[in-house]
C-alpha cells in the first residue's frame, strides 16, 4: 500500500532485513561495494580474507565511536569529546597496568585486567554523564559542552602522563595482571576480538533502537523534544543516558586501540570525533536528529575505514587520502539532503 516516497524515507529500520530498504539506504552500501571493487582491481592484496580482517579491526575503533555518536545525533545532539575520552581511557588503563601506588599504605596495587577494563568503562561513563548533565540539566548547548569536555579530558590525559606514552601494557605474571593485549591481538574462530566487540556493540545498539522503549524515546526526543516530553518521555534521563553510552563506547574504543598498539598515549584519537560524525552522516542519519540507523552507521564506518586502508595499500599519499575522505563525506551529505529535502513534511 504505502509506497509513496515520503512514507519510505520516514520509515525506520525495525531490525528486519529487507532488500527494498537496503537499496534505499543503499548509497553507503554501494559506495562500499565500489570501494572494494576498485581497490581489489588495483591491488591483489586487497581482496583477501586476512586483509579484510585487519581492515575490520581498524574499523572497530571508528565503528565503536560512531555507534555512540549515532545515539547522540539521533537525540539531536553532538559529542565532540569522544576522541579525548578514548585517549583518557587508554592512558588510565595504561596507568592502572603500571600499578596504582597507595602512598598511605605504602603498597602498589596491580588490578587484574578485567578490573582495569571495568574501571576504564566506568571512567568513560562518568565523563559521558558529565556531558549529559551539562547539556540536559544546565542547558549548555551540546556543541559547547562537549567541546569543553573534549579539551578537559585531553588535558587530563596529558597531565596524567606528562605527555608521555605508556609502552608496556603487557603486565607481569607475578602480579596477575597479564592479558591486556588479548583485546587487540587474539582471535576467536579467526575473527579479531575487536571486530567481535564492534559486532556485539552494533547488535545491542540496533536492538535497543528498534525494539526497546528507550530506543523509541531516543528517536522521539530527537525528532521533537517538546512533544516527546508531553507524551511522558523522560527526555532528560534519555539525554544523560545517551551521552553516558557514548562515553562508555569511547572508553571501550580506547581500550581496544591501546591494546592494538600495545601502548597508550595521551594524543591518541585526535580528530576521531570528526571521523565518527562522518561515519554517522555517510550512514544516512540526519544531523538534526530523529533519523538514522545502526546499520547505516556501520556501513558508513566501513566505507571510511576501507577507503583509507585501501588508499594506504595502493600507496596513495596521505594528503590525497584526506582529500578523498573529505569528498566522500560531502557527497554523502549531499545525498542526505536530496533524500530528506523532498521529504514528507507539508510546506
Amino acid at each position, binding site marked *: 500500500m*504505502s509506497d509513496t516516497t*515520503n512514507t519510505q524515507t520516514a520509515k525506520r529500520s525495525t531490525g528486519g532485513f529487507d532488500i527494498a530498504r537496503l537499496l534505499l539506504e543503499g548509497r553507503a552500501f554501494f559506495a562500499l561495494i565500489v570501494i572494494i571493487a576498485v581497490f581489489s582491481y588495483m591491488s591483489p592484496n586487497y581482496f583477501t580474507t586476512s586483509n579484510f580482517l585487519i581492515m575490520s579491526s581498524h574499523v572497530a575503533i571508528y565503528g565503536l565511536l560512531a555507534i555512540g555518536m549515532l545515539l547522540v545525533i539521533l537525540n539531536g545532539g553532538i559529542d565532540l569529546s569522544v576522541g579525548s575520552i578514548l585517549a583518557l581511557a587508554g592512558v588510565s588503563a595504561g596507568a592502572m597496568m603500571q600499578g596504582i601506588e597507595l602512598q598511605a599504605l605504602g603498597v602498589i596495587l596491580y588490578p587484574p585486567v578485567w578490573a582495569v577494563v571495568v574501571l576504564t568503562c566506568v571512567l568513560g561513563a562518568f565523563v559521558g554523564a558529565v556531558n549529559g548533565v551539562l547539556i540536559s540539566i544546565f542547558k549548555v548547548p551540546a556543541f559547547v559542552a562537549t567541546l569543553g569536555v573534549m579539551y578537559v579530558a585531553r588535558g587530563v590525559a596529558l597531565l596524567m602522563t606528562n605527555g608521555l606514552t605508556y609502552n608496556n601494557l603487557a603486565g607481569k605474571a607475578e602480579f596477575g595482571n597479564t592479558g591486556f593485549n588479548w583485546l587487540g591481538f587474539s582471535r576467536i574462530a579467526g575473527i579479531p576480538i575487536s571486530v567481535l566487540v564492534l559486532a556485539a556493540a552494533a547488535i545491542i545498539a540496533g536492538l535497543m533502537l528498534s525494539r*526497546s522503549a528507550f530506543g523509541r*524515546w531516543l528517536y*522521539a526526543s530527537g525528532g521533537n523534544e517538546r512533544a516527546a*516530553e*508531553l507524551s*511522558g518521555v523522560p527526555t532528560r534521563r534519555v539525554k544523560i543516558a545517551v551521552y553516558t553510552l557514548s562515553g562508555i563506547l569511547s572508553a571501550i574504543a580506547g581500550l581496544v586501540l591501546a591494546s592494538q598498539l600495545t601502548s597508550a598515549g595521551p594524543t591518541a584519537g585526535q580528530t576521531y570525533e570528526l571521523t565518527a560524525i562522518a561515519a554517522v552522516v555517510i550512514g544516512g542519519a540526519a544531523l538534526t*536528529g530523529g533519523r538514522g540507523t545502526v546499520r547505516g552507521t556501520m556501513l558508513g564506518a566501513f566505507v571510511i575505514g576501507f577507503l583509507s586502508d585501501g588508499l594506504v595499500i595502493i600507496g596513495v599519499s596521505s594528503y590525497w587520502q584526506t582529500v578523498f575522505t573529505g569528498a566522500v563525506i560531502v557527497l554523502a551529505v549531499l545525498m542526505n539532503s536530496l533524500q530528506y529535502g523532498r521529504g514528507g513534511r507539508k510546506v
Partner: protein
Amino acid sequence: MSPRTSVPDATPEPGHVVLAARNVAKSYGNVHALKGVNFDIHQGQVTTLFGENGAGKSTLMKVLSGVIQPTSGEIILDGRPVVFGNAAEARDHGISIIHQELSLAPNLSVRDNIFMGRELHGTTGVDFAEEERQTRKLMEELEENIDPLTPVEDLRLGQQQIVEIARALSVNSRILIMDEPTSALSASEVEVLFKVIRDLTARGVSIVYISHHLEEALTITDHAVVLRDGNMTAYAPRAEIDLEWIVRNMVGENYDLGSPPNGYEMGGVALSIRNLSVPDASGVDLVRDLSLDVRAGEIVCVYGLMGAGRTELLEAAAGRLAKTGGEIVLEGREVSHLSIGERIARGLALVPEDRQRDGLVQTMSVGQNLSLASIRNFTRGLFTQHRAEKKLIQDSIREVTVKTDGGDASIGSLSGGNQQKVVIGKILATKPRVIMLDEPSRGIDIGAKAEVFRLLAEGAKQGLAVLYSTSEVGECLSIAHRIIVMHKGRISAVFDSNASKEQIMAASGEAEAA
C-alpha cells in the same frame, strides 16, 4: 470602486471568475488527494470550501497558490492558462495564501516574519523603521495588541495565527486564500477578521476561505463548494444553502453533537486542583489561586477567551509548567512532585493545544506517534512487543478515524485535521483516568468531532474524568456537565449544562473584549 491601485484588474462588476482550477488532479504515489476538480474563485467575493478532513482542501489551495504542482489539469487566471513554478511566482500574480499549519520563524520578531523574503529596502539596507510602522498598522487593523518586535515564539497560538494573517494581508494581493485561518482564534478575533475580509472584498479582493466552523463560515461566504474524497460534490451560491446542506454534502449524513451523557452515577473526585497559581516568565500570574474538582465520570468544560489562562492551567496540571503554589491531587494523591511521564502512568494526561510544536514528532510515522505515550504498556522486559503495538495502532486509527495509508505513513502526509486526531488518539491510547484536552477540535471536521465527543462520553460512563478546554461555547454546551468560565486567570463563573450561550459568554468578558 476602490481607490487602491494595488488591484489593477478590478472590474466594476464583481462576481466574474478570476482564478479557476480545471480538472486538477494531484496524487502522492497512489494516494489521490485530488481527482479532477473544478473550482472557481469569484472577483470581490468569498468562496468557501467545505469538506471532511483529508478531502483535499489544503491540497487544492496549495495547487492554486503555486506551493505544489498538480499532477494534471490546469489553472486559469483571468481567462488565460497559467503555470506557477512556485509560491513566489503565484505571489507575483497577486495570489497569496495563509497556510493551515503556521509557517512562521519562531525566533524572529513579528515584523521580520511579516516581511520575510520581501524586506523593504531603504538607502542603508533594510528599512526596519518603515517595516515596523507597517506592522503596527496591520496590527491596528486587526485590533490586536502585539508589539512588532516580539519574537513569534513568545506569542500564543492564536496570536501567531494573527501574524500569519497579517503577513498575507501585507502583500496587498488580489486573491487571498485562507486555509483555516481561525482555528485558534477567539470569537471576537474572528469578528475582526470578518470585518477585514468585508473591507477586502469591497475593494475587489477575492477570498477563498476554509473552515470547519460551519456556522461561522456561513456568515461570511458568498459561494460554497464542497469537496469529498478529492472530488467536488456540490456547489451553490449562499442564497441556496444552509448548514444542513453543507453537512449533508460533506459527510452524507447529519451529525448531532448531542448533549452531555447521562443516566449513570458519577464517582468521587478524580482530579482536584487547589489554589493553583502559575506565573509566566516575568512572574505575573497567568493562573491565580484557582481551585476546581472533576469527578470520575464527569465532563467539565473550561471556557474562556484566548489568554484567559486555560492552557497554563492544563499544562501545570500535566506537569509541563512550574507552579508557584497550590496542589494537584489525582484520585486522592498529590502528584505535584511527579514528572509528566509518571502522571501519565497514573492516568493523568493532556492533549496539547499546538499539534506541531507539542503534539507530533515529525520524523516518526503515524503509528509511532500514536504509540509514543503508551509505549510503556507494551514493553515486556527490555523489548517492545510488535504485535501488541501494531494492534494498538490499528485500534487507534479506527477509533479516532484517522484517514491514512496505514501506520507506516509519515505524519506529514496526513491532512491537518487527521494530524490532530493522531494527537488525541495518542493520549486516549494511554487509557487515562483523567483526560485534559486543550482545544482538541482545532481543525477536525464535524464528523470527527462527533466521534471524539462520543469517545469522551463513552469514557465518562466508565468513570473517565474529562477536563475540556475550549473557546467555543457550542462545544461546552453539547458535551459538558459543568461549565467553568475562566477570565484573567480566575474562575469567573460556573454553569450547568442548561446555561445559555449568552450567559457563558458574558461571564468570560467577551463583551468587554469585543
